[in-house]
């Protein structure tokens, strides 16, 4: 089980997407820092206890720290504004709001005085905390400790000024006051004229979740008005003087190579800049229509690669080209699996198929690039600004200090925007044009040239005894990934394997990574095992669980759902659960299947436990969004492809959930104030597909083992069966 203090990016990257550990050193240079921020008090969260390193309460001038050791800054200016510098980015998960709440809570300042500076590589510390190992403290914890340190420092400054003991002072509404209420001084007054830079002690005492006043409450999106008025500038909305619009000429298929490229007709159009460098062929023009026109005027002969698999034979292909066990996220084998299978009262064997799906962030990839005096500045919607900075520095052979990546709040990602394609394209065109260039991908480009949630094949073999004991659990995942493969159900023997394959499509991370696929297979199998021995699906799970939090979410969901209630004819109940990233989820679904085997999902109840809740409404939104996004992959989303081409690269051909697809959804949040807050953007997606599948099995006896399950709305017509 993962450490409960593990809180990754809301949508975790796969290992190969991780940014390189930075080799440059971020100078904790007091003068340089305050030159940028103005005077005041700054607190830096460092990943090691720098107090012992420096031997005192302040850092030596020009103390050099590896930039991966600095997690976040908080600065309290002379105007009382609290600036929070973090490499985290906002993609709709409302982290800008919840991190503000955490700082407001510890510092005892109004929310309005907090300014979040996020995802700007020139201003924020390298975001090593985001994608690090399980032991890396999470950003919320870092900021909480930095803010608590700042509060304590301010109290001590006031105590010194008033010549009283710090014990009788407290922070309140942006001021330090004495308990008697006779003295009061604003933070800004205290920090005026100071240039104090403090490292954070890892031992600093923070406010307990049970005493939270601001954190733990529903507070609306901090910059909400900008969004409902259309005023928030997404990257695709941005403009610079003299800016050109860029377009990239895409190959007709994956692996196609340009043999002959003739730019002359495009270059003959007034104002057009055209670039051909290896496989990169692109144009820029003063307006988008001219850019499109110039793109059409480029003459290219392509060499295509024959024999690429299609969605019709992809599953055989993935199994055929599977490599060796990745040993990533795969628990060690235990017990005698052969004996466990042979001795079981009932044996079970099923193969599950997972189709490729697309993230479909409503804002496609976009970037605006500008070169000024050898320095490259790029605004782009990416979940990894420092990763994109790395990519750009490598491609253009620049020091990282010469590349600035900025990430304005972006039109979502869901794990699909870890890469910097549009940034690289815009920067290349801008370099050639010597003018700023903006690139906004079309929906077709986003479907075709971004990356997809991997497809995969999962084989499950299990043995179960009449009394409900699991004797053997054998689980093989081909290609879709190892995340979430471990089972928490008791078993006498187990063997769990992840075999990466040679994916013909570009694949990458997705909300929950492979946990969606692995939990679908595991939880489907659990219900099938229960059905084999005529035991209730819920009772069978409870019998085989020991983890109290898992048991609690299952019971909460079942209670709210009315698990034991009578069902109308034609209705089925299904349940599924899982754990991931310190979160526990249980989902119940009710479906109706008519005589034509048409499936309708009527209602869903999901219980969710992610530790202490920071913002109940925003958490509920994350859970709701996960269920609804998960519904698409469960029922009808699938990327179709053949001959290196995506066949449904548009929103009229690739179906995502709409208003009319949404069943009645009830969410039960469990607030564990005694537990650290975990990230909540991923685990909530894993329960919906198997819950629906198990409800269909319950009413119709049909085992749908392919995601999506009912692309045409009818059970027993899974597409692309391998």
């Amino acid at each position, binding site marked *: 089980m993962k450490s409960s203090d593990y809180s990754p990016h809301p949508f975790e990257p796969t290992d190969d997407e991780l940014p390189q550990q930075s080799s440059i050193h971020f100078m904790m240079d007091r003068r340089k820092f305050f030159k940028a921020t103005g005077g005041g008090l700054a607190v830096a969260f460092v990943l090691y206890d720098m107090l012992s390193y420096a031997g005192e309460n302040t850092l030596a001038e020009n103390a050099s720290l590896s930039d991966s050791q600095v997690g976040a800054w908080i600065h309290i200016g002379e105007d009382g504004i609290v600036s929070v510098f973090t490499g985290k980015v906002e*993609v*709709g*998960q*409302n982290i800008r709001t919840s991190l503000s709440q955490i700082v407001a809570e510890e510092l005892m300042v109004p929310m309005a005085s907090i300014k979040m500076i996020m995802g700007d590589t020139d201003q924020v510390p390298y975001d090593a905390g985001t994608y690090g190992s399980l032991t890396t403290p999470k950003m919320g914890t870092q900021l909480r400790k930095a803010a608590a340190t700042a509060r304590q420092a301010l109290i001590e400054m006031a105590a010194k000024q008033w010549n009283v003991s710090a014990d009788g002072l407290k922070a309140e509404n942006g001021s330090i006051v004495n308990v008697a209420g006779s003295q009061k001084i604003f933070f800004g007054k205290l920090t005026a004229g100071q240039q104090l830079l403090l490292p954070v002690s890892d031992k600093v005492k923070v406010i307990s979740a049970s005493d939270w006043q601001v954190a733990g409450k*529903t507070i*609306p*999106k901090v910059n*909400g*008005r900008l*969004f*409902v*008025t*259309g*005023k*928030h*500038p*997404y990257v*695709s*909305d941005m*403009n610079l003087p003299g800016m050109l*619009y860029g377009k990239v000429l895409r190959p007709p298929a994956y692996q196609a190579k340009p043999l002959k490229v003739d730019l002359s007709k495009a270059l003959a159009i007034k104002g057009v800049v055209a670039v051909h460098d290896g496989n990169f062929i692109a144009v820029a023009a003063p*307006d*988008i*229509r001219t850019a499109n026109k110039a793109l059409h005027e480029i003459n290219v002969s392509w060499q295509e690669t024959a024999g690429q698999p299609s969605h019709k034979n992809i599953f055989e292909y993935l199994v055929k080209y599977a490599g060796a066990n990745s040993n990533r996220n795969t628990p060690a084998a235990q017990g005698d699996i052969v004996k466990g299978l042979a001795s079981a009262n009932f044996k079970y064997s099923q193969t599950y198929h997972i189709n490729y799906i697309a993230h*479909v*962030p*409503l*804002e*496609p990839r976009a970037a605006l690039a500008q070169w000024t005096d050898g320095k490259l500045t790029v605004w782009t919607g990416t979940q990894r600004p420092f990763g994109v900075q790395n990519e750009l520095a490598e491609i253009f052979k620049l020091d990282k200090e010469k590349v600035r990546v900025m990430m304005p*709040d*972006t*039109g*979502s990602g*869901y794990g699909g925007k870890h890469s910097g394609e549009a940034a690289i394209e815009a920067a290349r065109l801008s370099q050639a044009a010597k003018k700023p260039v903006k690139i*906004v991908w*079309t*929906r*077709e480009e986003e479907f075709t040239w971004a990356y997809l949630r991997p497809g995969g094949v999962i084989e499950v073999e299990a043995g179960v005894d009449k009394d409900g004991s699991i004797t053997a659990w054998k689980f093989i995942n081909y290609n879709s990934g190892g995340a979430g493969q471990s089972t928490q159900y008791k078993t006498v023997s187990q063997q769990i394997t992840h075999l990466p394959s040679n994916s013909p499509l570009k694949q990458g991370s997705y909300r929950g990574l492979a946990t969606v696929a692995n939990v679908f297979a595991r939880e489907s199998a659990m219900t099938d095992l229960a059905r084999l021995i005529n035991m209730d699906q819920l009772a069978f799970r409870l019998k085989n669980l020991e983890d109290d939090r898992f048991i609690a979410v299952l019971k909460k969901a079942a209670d709210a759902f009315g698990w034991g209630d009578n069902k109308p004819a034609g209705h089925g109940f299904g349940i599924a659960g899982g754990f991931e990233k310190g979160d526990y989820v249980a989902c119940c679904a009710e479906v109706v299947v008519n005589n034509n085997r048409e499936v309708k999902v009527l209602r869903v109840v999901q219980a969710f436990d992610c530790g202490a809740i920071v913002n109940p*409404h*925003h958490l509920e*939104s*994350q859970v*709701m*969004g*996960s*269920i*609804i*996004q998960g519904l698409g992959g469960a029922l009808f989303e699938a990327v179709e492809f053949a001959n290196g081409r995506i066949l449904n690269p*548009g*929103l*009229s051909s690739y179906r*995502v*959930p*709409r*208003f*009319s697809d*949404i069943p009645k*959804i009830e969410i039960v949040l469990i607030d564990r104030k005694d537990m650290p807050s975990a990230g909540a953007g991923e685990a909530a997606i894993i329960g919906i597909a198997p819950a629906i599948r198990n409800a269909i099995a319950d009413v119709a006896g049909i085992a749908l083992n392919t995601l999506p399950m009912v692309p045409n709305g009818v059970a027993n017509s899974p597409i692309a069966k391998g």
Partner: protein
Amino acid sequence: MVLTVNGKTYEVNTDPDADLLSVLRNELQLTGSKYGCGEGACGACTVLINGKPARSCITTMATLAGKDITTIEGLETNGKLHPVQMACLTTDAFQCSYCAPGMIMSAVSLLDQNPSPTEAAIVSAMNGNICRCGTYPYIIKAIQLASQS
């Protein structure tokens, strides 16, 4: 040609087959309306043409002579938000909010035509608008709240 947007007239020099969304965003710098699909399938680009919702990404300039266009930028009056915008803020409906302008324009048109829609009427009127973050239940609540104001 002359284009009337949010009560203002603009002289626009563009091809008659240019799409309205590109003209709004790139020439008039009215970037509130969003590109999401380019085929009228997601609703992010929704504007009102003579009060009726339209997908500006598939609306050509040639069809717009003499018509009144309203975009998200035209909803606020004297710094006061439209009731649908207010209701979206009150319910804190959106996540990434990229769909918000299109959603709000579709909802404004719905409430203009049907001030007290049933939930089924809301679903039917809004079904052309996609929210990939999955905030649909909150958007329905926001429209219901706006219909009461």
